[in-house]
C-alpha cells in the first residue's frame, strides 16, 4: 500500500523562466525513473497523440516515459493577443504503465519541484473524466487545481483505440504555459521570460512565438487551402489502411514486421488535418461526427496492429 511520503519541500526556490520549469520537470521525472523522450516530430493536438502514449499504453509491457510535446489546436489561435490562448503550445506528458500506487504523491512531488509549496497553496483533485473520441480512448481521473486553477490532467487510461488497457497506464498532462505563468506570476503569456531574464540575450515567450501565432492564426482561419486539406485527409486515411493491409511477414528481411507506427503517423496526420478543416469552418456539425468517426476508425486499426507487435506485448 502507498505510504504517503511527507511532502515537506526541501529548499524550494522559485523558477526563473519558462524553460526552468520545463528543465525541472525533466529532471524530476528522470530522477523518478522515466525515460525522457523528445517531442514527436509531427503535428499533434496533444501530448497524448505521441505514440509513446497512445500506442505504448496498449499491451502488457511495462513503460515509463516523460516528454515535452508541442501541440497545435488551430481553432485556439488568437493572433498572439489573448493572454492565455495559443494555437501552438507545449504540454508536458508523463506516462507510466502499470500506474504505480503512489502516482498522486509522485505528481505532487513534481509540483514541489517547480516551486509550488503545498503548504501555501490549495491543491485539489477535481473529478474530470477524460475522453478522446478521435482516439477511441477514455479514462477516469481528475483535473488538478492549484488555488482554483487547473494545472494538470491526471488520468488512468481504461481504453485506447477501442482496446481495454491492461495493465492500466497513469497519464499526467501539464499545460506548461499556464502552469509556468502561474508559478512565475505572469499575466500575459507573451510577457513570460523564456530563458533566464538575467541572460545576456533574454528572450520572452513573445519574442519567440508572437509572430508565429499571428502567422498561423491567419493560416488556420483564412490561409489554409481547404481543398488540399480535404484531399490530404483522404490520402492519409487511404495510406493508413494500405500500410496495415500488408502481410506481417516482410519478404526482404524474412522478419515479421507490422507497420503499426508508420500507419499511426497517417492517423495523426488525418487528425491534424481534421482540426485544420474545423478551424477553417468547412465542417458542418453533422459532418463533424463523421470525420471524428473516420479518425477513430484509423486509431483502432493502428491499435489492433500495435498489439500484434513485440512492443505491443505480442509473443510470437
Amino acid at each position: 500500500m502507498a505510504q504517503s511520503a511527507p511532502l515537506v519541500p526541501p529548499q524550494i526556490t522559485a523558477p526563473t523562466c519558462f524553460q526552468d520549469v520545463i528543465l525541472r520537470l525533466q529532471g524530476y521525472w528522470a530522477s523518478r525513473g522515466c525515460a525522457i523522450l523528445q517531442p514527436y516530430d509531427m503535428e499533434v493536438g496533444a501530448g497524448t497523440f505521441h505514440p509513446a502514449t497512445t500506442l505504448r499504453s496498449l499491451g502488457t509491457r511495462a513503460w515509463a516515459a516523460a516528454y515535452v510535446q508541442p501541440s497545435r489546436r488551430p481553432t485556439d489561435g488568437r493572433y498572439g493577443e489573448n493572454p492565455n490562448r495559443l494555437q501552438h503550445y507545449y504540454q508536458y506528458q508523463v506516462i507510466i504503465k502499470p500506474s504505480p500506487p503512489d502516482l498522486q504523491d509522485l505528481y505532487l512531488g513534481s509540483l514541489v519541484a517547480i516551486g509550488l509549496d503545498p503548504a501555501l497553496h490549495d491543491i485539489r483533485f477535481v473529478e474530470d473524466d477524460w475522453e478522446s473520441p478521435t482516439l477511441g480512448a477514455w479514462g477516469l481521473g481528475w483535473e488538478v487545481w492549484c488555488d482554483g486553477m487547473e494545472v494538470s490532467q491526471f488520468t488512468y487510461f481504461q481504453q485506447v483505440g477501442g482496446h481495454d488497457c491492461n495493465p492500466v497506464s497513469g497519464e499526467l498532462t501539464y499545460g506548461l504555459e499556464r502552469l509556468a505563468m502561474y508559478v512565475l506570476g505572469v499575466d500575459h503569456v507573451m510577457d513570460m521570460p523564456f530563458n533566464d531574464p538575467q541572460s545576456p540575450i533574454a528572450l520572452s515567450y513573445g519574442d519567440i512565438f508572437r509572430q508565429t501565432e499571428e502567422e498561423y492564426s491567419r493560416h488556420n482561419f483564412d490561409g489554409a487551402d481547404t481543398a488540399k486539406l480535404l484531399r490530404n485527409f483522404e490520402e492519409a486515411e487511404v495510406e493508413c489502411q494500405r500500410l496495415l493491409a500488408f502481410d506481417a511477414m516482410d519478404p526482404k528481411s524474412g522478419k515479421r514486421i507490422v507497420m503499426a507506427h508508420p500507419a499511426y503517423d497517417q492517423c495523426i496526420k488525418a487528425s491534424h488535418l481534421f482540426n485544420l478543416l474545423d478551424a477553417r469552418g468547412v465542417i458542418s456539425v453533422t459532418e463533424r461526427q463523421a470525420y471524428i468517426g473516420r479518425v477513430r476508425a484509423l486509431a483502432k486499426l493502428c491499435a489492433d496492429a500495435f498489439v500484434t507487435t513485440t512492443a505491443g506485448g505480442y509473443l510470437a
Partner: protein
Amino acid sequence: MPDLLIELFSEEIPARMQARAADDLKRLVTDGLVAAGLTYAGAGAFATPRRLTLAVEGLDAASRPTVEDRKGPMVTAPEAAVQGFLRSTGLTLDQLERRADKKGEVWFAVIRKPGRPAADIIAEVLADAIRNFPWPKSMRWGAGSLRWVRPLQSILCVLSSEAGSEVVPVSIDGFVAGNTTEGHRFMAPGRFAVSGFDDYHAKLKRAFVILDGAERAAAIWHDATQAAFAMGLEVVEDKGLLAEVAGLVEWPVVLLARIPAPFLHLPPEVLQTSMREHQKFFSLRNPATGRIEGFVTVANRETTDHGDTILKGNLKVLSARLSDARFFWDNDLRVARAGMGDWLDGLASVTFHNKLGSQADRIARIAALVREIAPFVGADPDQAEQAARIAKADLRSAMVGEFPELQGVMGRYYALEAGMPASVADAARDHYSPLGPSDAVPVAPVSVAVALADKLDTLTGFWAIDEKPTGSKDPFALRRAALGVIRLVLGNENRCELIPFIVSAVRRNQAAMMQAGKDHHGRHGTMSSIDAVRLAQSLSVKGIEEMTALVEDIDTAIMTLSQGLSSGVPPQEWELQRSSDLLAFFHDRLKVYLKDQSIRQDVIDACLAMPENCDLTLLVKRAEALNATLATEDGANLVQGFKRAANILTQAEAKDGVEYSYGADIKFAETDAERALFAALDAADAKIAPAMAAEDFTTAMAAMAALRGPVDAFFTAVQVNADNQIVRRNRLNLLSRIRTLCLSVADLTKLDG
C-alpha cells in the same frame, strides 16, 4: 455487543458520488450482515473526498444457530429423486426424517447451521460489497483487476468491544484490512491506528479531517455567512454547490474577496454562472443594491499566511475568466444595440436538425404559428411574432457560446439593449420555460404564446421525421416539451383547441422536412417525388394536371404546402392522422401529470373519451369535477346505477336488435318510483344542459349525482323486463335517458368497478 468500523480509503472520490456511495456502503454491508443472521442496533455512513466510512453499533458477536426443515420427495419416490435431494442438502439417507404428509410419508431434511463469529461474516460481506459496489462509473488501475471509483489505497476494518479491538481478516485482491488510516493529505500526512469509531472520529479531527459531509457543509455555510455579514454582503444560497464543495474538501477553510471593480457591471447571472461553473465559488450579493459584488471560495487547508496566497491565486483565475466574460459582453452589446441583425442572419447557418433545417427556418415556423396562438392566450400577435423572431438570437452571442445555460437570460438583456418592449424581452428569457416539472410557468401572454409555439414546433417537427420517444429514450426531451405545453395551458387556464395549432405546425414541419431533404439529397429530397406531389395535391386548390408537373419540381410542392397554410385549406387526412397521434402523446403526458395531482386514471379516461378533448383546460376541469363527484357517496353510487342501466340496455338492445334511445313516456309508468325517476330526470336535464353549456361541470355533475336516490329507488321497486312489452320498452327508453344524460357529462363507461 461489539461495534464495527469500516473505512475504504482511496484516491479522490468525485464529489457528486459521495453521499450516494456512503448510503450504498451502509445498505450493502448491513443487508449482508442481516442476511447472514447478525442483528445490529444502529449504523451510520460517512464520506469525504478520500474515504467511505461505515460505523455499525451493537452488532451480534456471532450469528445464531439456525435450523431449517426442508421438505423432500415422497418416501415412495424413485431412487433418483431421493439421491438428488441428498445431494442438494449434503446429507445422507440415515440423517433424513420421515414425516407424514397429506399424501403419505415424505423425506424431510433438518439442516442445522451453527452460529458463525461476526468477524467471519463481516469479512465475506465486506469483500462482496467492494466487488459489487454500484459506482456510477468505476475503473481499474495498475496491474490489478479490482474495480473502484478511483484507486483504492487501503481498507480499515475493526471490530471493537469492551474486551478490546481486533482487525477483521478481510482480504481482497491483495488488499488486507488493517486498523490504520490517514488524515489530511497535506496538513497531517502519515498513518495512524484506531481502536473504534469514537477514537477514529476524534483522531481524524486532530488530523484535520471532518468526517461528516453535512458537518462540513454546515461549517462552510456558517463561516461564509458570518464573514460575508462582516463585509456587509450576503451569500447567495446554492444548495447544490454547497453539497459539491463539501465533497471537495476534508478541512474546509472559507476565503472571501470582492470582485475587482472592472467586472462589477456584468449582469449578475453572468457573474454567478462564471464563478459557479468554472471556480465553484459562491456569490456574494449586496443586499442594498442586489448586485453581485464578491465571492467565497472554499480551500482545503489552513496556511501560515491565512490563505493569502490561495486567495490571490483564485482572484487571478477569476480575473482571467471575467475578462473573457467582459469581452463577450462588450462585443455582444454592440451587436444587440445594432438590432441583433448579425445574430439573426447567423442563425441561418446553425443547423437545428439536419432533417428539419436551420434555426432560422425553425424561427420562421414559430413566428408564423405564434400569430395563430396569440389571440387565444391574450397576446398581441405583432408582439408575439416579434418576440418569436428574436427569442433565439442570443444563441449566436459570444456569452451564450461560452455559457449555454445562460440562453434566454442573455436574450432578455440583449433584447432590451436593442430597444424591444419589455414583454418581448421577457419572452426571450421565458420561452424555454417550463423546463423541469417544478420550474415556474410563464404567465405573461407574449411569453406564453412563444413558449407554446416553440414547444409545439419541436414536437411536430420530431413527429414529422419520426423521432418519437421510445421507452427510456427521449434524446430530444419531447416528453418534457409536451408536459411544458400542458403546464402552460393549464397554468394559465388558456382556452384553446390544440388540434388546429398542431395541424398548422405539422404542415410547416412537413415543408421544412422536404426542404431539408432536398438540401441534403438533391432535387427530390428523402421522400419520393410521388409522395411529395401527393402531399402537395392534398393541400392544393389547383387541378391535378398542374400538380403532375410537380414531379419535376419539389420547390413548388414545398411552396404549395406553405401556401396551404395561409390559404386556409382545411386539414387533410394525413395531417389529422399525425396530429391525433401527437395529441395521444399529449394525453399520455397529461395522464401522468394528473395522476400526480391525485386524479384517478379511469376518470381521466372517461373525460378523454369526450369530444373537445384537445382543449386541455376544459378536459381537466371536467376531470376534476368528475373526480370530486366520485368521491361523494351519491356520485359513487350513481355510477353503479348508471352501469346497471347501461348493462340492462346493452343486453336488451343486443337481444332485440334495436336501440332504445327515444320516447319514454310517463303515461306508461306504472309505479311511483318510475314516475319519480321521470321527474328527477326532467329536473336534472333542466340543470345539466345549461350547466354544460356554461362549462360548469361541478353543477352538472352535482345534478347528475342527485339522480342517485331516484335511480336506486327505481331499481329497487321496478322490474325493467316486464311481461307487458309496452311497459318494458318504456322502461328501457327511460333507462336510455339515464344513459344519455350521464354520458353527456363524461364517458362513465370508462370508469372502473
